[in-house]
């Protein structure tokens, strides 16, 4: 190879070649000017082990190369301080060199400036250390979060247990209270005058309200802990909704609210009759609560998205503010518009309705305009049963 090319390579890679004899004395050099900044005295005639005393600790390895046991020996991370005060790193590789014209053993030593490489390795090591520190921090935080999460879960379980016990304890005395109130109202203990009857009627209403609250609390605890089981069967949604309308008829009539039921022809839907009735009851009860006396409520059953039928409850009440809309299905949430005793409640109705409709495989959603009423939708999966209902579209006014 042209010596100028070799020189260029040596210059580019900041390296030097040394030719050594068996006593590690330097016979010839090339490119030493490119590693002079390493502070090494590598003149012909000098001894390599004097210039690099670190090699004296590696005599065994050098002898292995000398004896032909190892093909080469490399010593990394050697360093010197340059006259400018910078630390310079370099590497030396030694291997046997056989000359055709001289049988005496000779060796080639290649010295390479690895300062940049070493600095990069150092930087990589620093980055790795930083990454490791970050990893440790994340792990510590994850552990702390897991612990906090576990504590929260435990507290949630305690809360649910408390609700269950409290609701049971509140409900148990209600049965005899209700029994005696009904006996009083049926004049079993003698005739009541108008004032007494009014007082007992008020007691009855509040006992029923308390029973409804405890039922909601127990339902919530059952659903949250997975102690609820629905049995879905092909169900005639029309009959189910009609029964709920009749159930709430008296409540709506007492406030002169008009209830209209519009039924489209529908196939059977997959419902747990008791729980589906509870969902629709919640919606009707809510619609009545938030609709003023003399207002109108419409309930419709109609086809929904593909494979679904839906129940729609539309009121002409106060509507729901934008702020309240996003929290409406949260447990214990009560809209800010609830200011009168008439609209009292636990804030569980819609939350339970959402959980129950989710178990049905359906959805619940709503549209509302503050001041102009709300429309709630619940969807149920249409059954594959072949005995489709064949009712035509009908409209019935339940109360007026």
């Amino acid at each position, binding site marked *: 190879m042209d010596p100028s090319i070799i020189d260029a390579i040596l210059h580019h890679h900041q390296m030097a070649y040394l030719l050594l004899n068996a006593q590690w004395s330097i016979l010839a050099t090339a490119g030493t000017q490119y590693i002079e900044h390493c502070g090494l005295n590598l003149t012909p005639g000098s001894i390599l082990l004097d210039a690099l005393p670190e090699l004296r600790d590696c005599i065994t390895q050098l002898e292995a190369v000398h004896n032909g046991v190892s093909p080469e020996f490399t010593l990394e991370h050697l360093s010197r301080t340059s006259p400018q005060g910078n630390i310079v790193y370099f590497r030396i590789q030694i291997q046997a060199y056989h000359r055709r014209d001289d049988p005496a053993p000779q060796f080639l030593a290649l010295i390479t400036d690895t300062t940049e490489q070493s600095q990069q390795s150092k930087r990589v090591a620093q980055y790795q250390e930083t990454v490791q520190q970050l990893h440790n921090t994340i792990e510590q935080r*994850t552990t702390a*979060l*897991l612990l906090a*999460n576990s504590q929260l*879960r435990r507290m949630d379980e305690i809360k649910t247990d408390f609700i269950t016990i409290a609701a049971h304890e509140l409900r148990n005395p209600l049965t005899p209270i209700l029994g005696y109130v009904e006996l009083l109202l049926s004049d079993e203990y003698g005739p009541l005058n108008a004032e007494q009857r009014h007082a007992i009627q008020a007691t009855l209403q509040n006992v029923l309200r308390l029973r409804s609250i405890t039922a909601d609390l127990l339902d919530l605890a059952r*659903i*949250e*802990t*997975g102690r*609820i*089981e*629905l*049995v*879905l*069967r092909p169900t005639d949604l029309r009959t189910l909704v009609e029964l709920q309308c009749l159930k709430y008829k008296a409540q709506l009539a007492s406030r002169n609210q008009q209830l209209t039921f519009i039924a489209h022809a529908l196939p059977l839907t*997959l419902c*747990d009759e008791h729980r589906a009735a509870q969902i629709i009851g919640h919606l009707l009860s809510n619609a009545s609560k938030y609709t003023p006396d003399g207002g109108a409520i419409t309930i419709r059953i109609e086809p929904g998205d593909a*494979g679904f039928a839906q129940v729609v409850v539309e009121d002409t009440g106060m509507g729901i503010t934008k702020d309240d809309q996003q929290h409406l299905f949260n447990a214990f949430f009560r809209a800010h518009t609830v200011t009168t005793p008439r609209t009292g409640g636990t804030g569980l109705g819609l939350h339970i309705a959402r*959980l129950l409709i*989710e*178990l*049905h*495989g359906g959805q619940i959603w709503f549209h509302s305009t503050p001041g102009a009423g709300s429309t709630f939708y619940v969807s149920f*999966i*249409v*059954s*594959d049963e072949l005995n489709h209902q064949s009712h035509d579209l009908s409209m019935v006014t339940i109360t007026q």
Partner: protein
Amino acid sequence: MSISKKICLLGDSAVGKTSLLHRFIYQRFDDQQQHTFGIHVMRKPMSISLAGGTVEVVLLLWDAATEPQVCQSNASYLRGAAGMMLVCDVTRPATLLNISKHMTTLQTAYPGCKYIVAANKSDGEQQILTRGDVQSALRHHEVPFYMTSAKTGYEVEKLFQQVGRLLVS
């Protein structure tokens, strides 16, 4: 806020679908489990441990007297399912064949679903199918499976943990 996922159980009659659910949810086993009528839906909140932390998921478990071929005849049962658990009985090889036979149809009809197989009743001398038999029968479907026993609880928790992981991953 947890996420809710619907999982449908499928498999021949009396393979132990309801028993698996009762073992998982109520930690109990009824030797005289009655035949299931209607569709039973249960709810189970779970914490799923993933590499990045814990995810809260609610499994909505649908159980019916339905067989694997229901995908054509009972679409309402499977509508909206995020996962399907196919159950066979290791004392009745035909129940595994049925799963294997209908798996491709299910995977084609519901490509977005996650699938898992429970080889149930892996607890007694009457066991005929081995882990190798189940693996061999399912080799073309790339579906995870567990040898389970609703009676002893063997691998039941792991099975549902895996269901949760499949659904949130």
